[in-house]
């Protein structure tokens, strides 16, 4: 058995699992985080996408042991108790998901993109989402949603900057 400890959505989580357990199985079966989905199990469809140490990866292609000591972000970690993440808001407003199965993977790929680049071009968005397959939507609204989310996040960071400046200059 492999003992693994990692930080999932900000919480320290641990488990003792057979070595051949993938990160996807660990998240779904041991941690009950069923947002990441099994679509193909070979890294083609992206439904299993999670963010490990800031990078979007196919969790079906990682062994649980490889996640030891790392920071994992799953779809369950995007929203807080008070509010949705702007990416979730944007996708909801754009109607960008239909059956929803590919959703968690797509949203996390979008997050990975927007964490690096708050002004992505359409081509950059397509590139970032090219590892996430969707059979329902045709992707068009997803691209709009990511652009929308980028705008929301830019506004947020401007607001925060303004507040910071205001605080800094406050007597």
């Amino acid at each position, binding site marked *: 058995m492999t003992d693994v400890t990692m930080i999932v959505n900000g919480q320290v989580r641990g488990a003792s699992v057979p070595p051949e357990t993938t990160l996807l199985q660990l998240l779904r079966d041991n941690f009950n985080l069923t947002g990441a*989905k099994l679509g193909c199990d070979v890294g083609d469809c992206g439904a299993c996408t999670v963010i490990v140490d800031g990078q979007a990866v196919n969790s079906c292609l990682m062994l649980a042991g490889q996640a030891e000591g790392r920071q994992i972000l799953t779809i369950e970690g995007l929203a807080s108790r008070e509010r949705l993440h702007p990416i979730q808001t944007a996708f909801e407003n754009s*109607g960008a998901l239909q059956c*929803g199965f590919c959703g968690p993977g797509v949203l996390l790929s979008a997050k990975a993109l927007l964490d690096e680049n708050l002004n992505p071009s359409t081509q950059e968005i397509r590139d970032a989402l090219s590892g996430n397959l969707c*059979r329902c939507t045709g992707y068009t609204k997803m691209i709009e949603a990511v652009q929308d989310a980028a705008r929301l996040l830019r506004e947020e960071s401007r607001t925060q900057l303004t507040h910071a400046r205001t605080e800094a200059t406050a007597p």
Partner: protein
Amino acid sequence: MNEHSRVLERDELEIAETLRSPDVDLRLPAVLPREPYPIEPLTPDARQQTRAVGQRATRSDARLHGLGQTKYIDDLSFPGMLYARIKRAGIASARIKRIDTSAAEAMPGVMAVLTGKEIPTNSFGPTFQDQPVLADPIVRHAGDGVAAVAAVTEQIANEALAKIVVEYEPLPAVLDPVAAMREDSPKVHAPNSNIYATKVVRKGDIEKGFAESDRIFEARFSTQMIEHVSLEPHAAIADWDANGRLTIWATIGRITLARADMARTLKLPMSRIRIIGTIVGGNFGGKNEISQEPALALLSKKTGRPVKGVFTRGEEFTATTTRHPIIMDYKTGVSNKGRILARQIRLVLDGGAYCSWSATTLGKACILSPGPYKIDNVVAEAFVVYTNKTMTGAMRGFGAPQVCFAYESQMDDIAKALGIDPLEIRLLNAFDEGSSSPTGQVLHSVVVKESLRKAADRFGWEPRS
């Protein structure tokens, strides 16, 4: 009383010690789902448009999808649940001489094994009940299931499949639907002919129509087999209660039909069967009938535990229904101005190993095959034929996309040959309000020409001849 035997008084404990911290891992946000419409729903007056049309509306499931909280079947699990896997034949046409499941049954962790012999009524299907739950004794395509296991882990279930020994006697296979129409072809469902359904649509006088035509165009068009590839694979969970009632969680889009099929295959009154249609991760027609559910139900009965079965992506391609490949022969007679006077069509649908929704597909394809055009003389003959290949069934369009490819391609060919603009030739022939379809249905709310013109305008279509 000494130190060691002193009982800690409750008052002495810090308040925090009496409470465990709440499970913050369960990050269910407190944000409430919003109302789907910005206005109150109204019952509209007859023939009046409801005010909801044209409004932006949020999907009611969007919130949970975005949160990753939507529970699909594979996200459900129950205490004691077992995992099922099905052994696939891997051979297109064969007779099973012998199945030896003893090695699999002896494996620790394997709780039950099932073969076709144990199925009370080993046949089902939405139109003809020609498909076995598990093949016994004839295998008709490589994706046919021949045995099923239920084990405590998927890993053990997979191993168990490898340990099941099946001896096959290979039989002749037919893989081409046109060849399968011949009398001397191997019969997939012997002794019946491989042609298992036909449809003919006739209108007017086809010979007269061709005689009056200035030009006649003949061509063969064919389309390929396509798989739905819904992101969510086929999955189901079966469980029995103490009173002998079966519950199936399934992604099936027609659960009443599924109940009837389950009742038939299990020889169980429908009143004992409850099917819960769960939220589905894409159907597109491929999840409209039962497949593994009777096997899961019997495994559950044998083991006394809930049994979950999830298809692998590979099984999605080999063991679920696909879109019919169709071989389409079109003979079209036109005037020099491009007006279609007669159209004769022969469709051969590759019907795969089992009927599934083929009869419906056949009907649709046949009726729609002349296209949305005013044609006075039509003969459309369609056949769906068994082959020893993957089952073909319902997939969005139900036969319409294939024939559309054929009649629109031929329209372009005719336009090019006659030197007519492809848009003009369509406007010349398309349905009008009150036109009658090839089957004699009088059509209303016909906007074909308006749509074409509008689209041409938006595309910036330049006339070409």
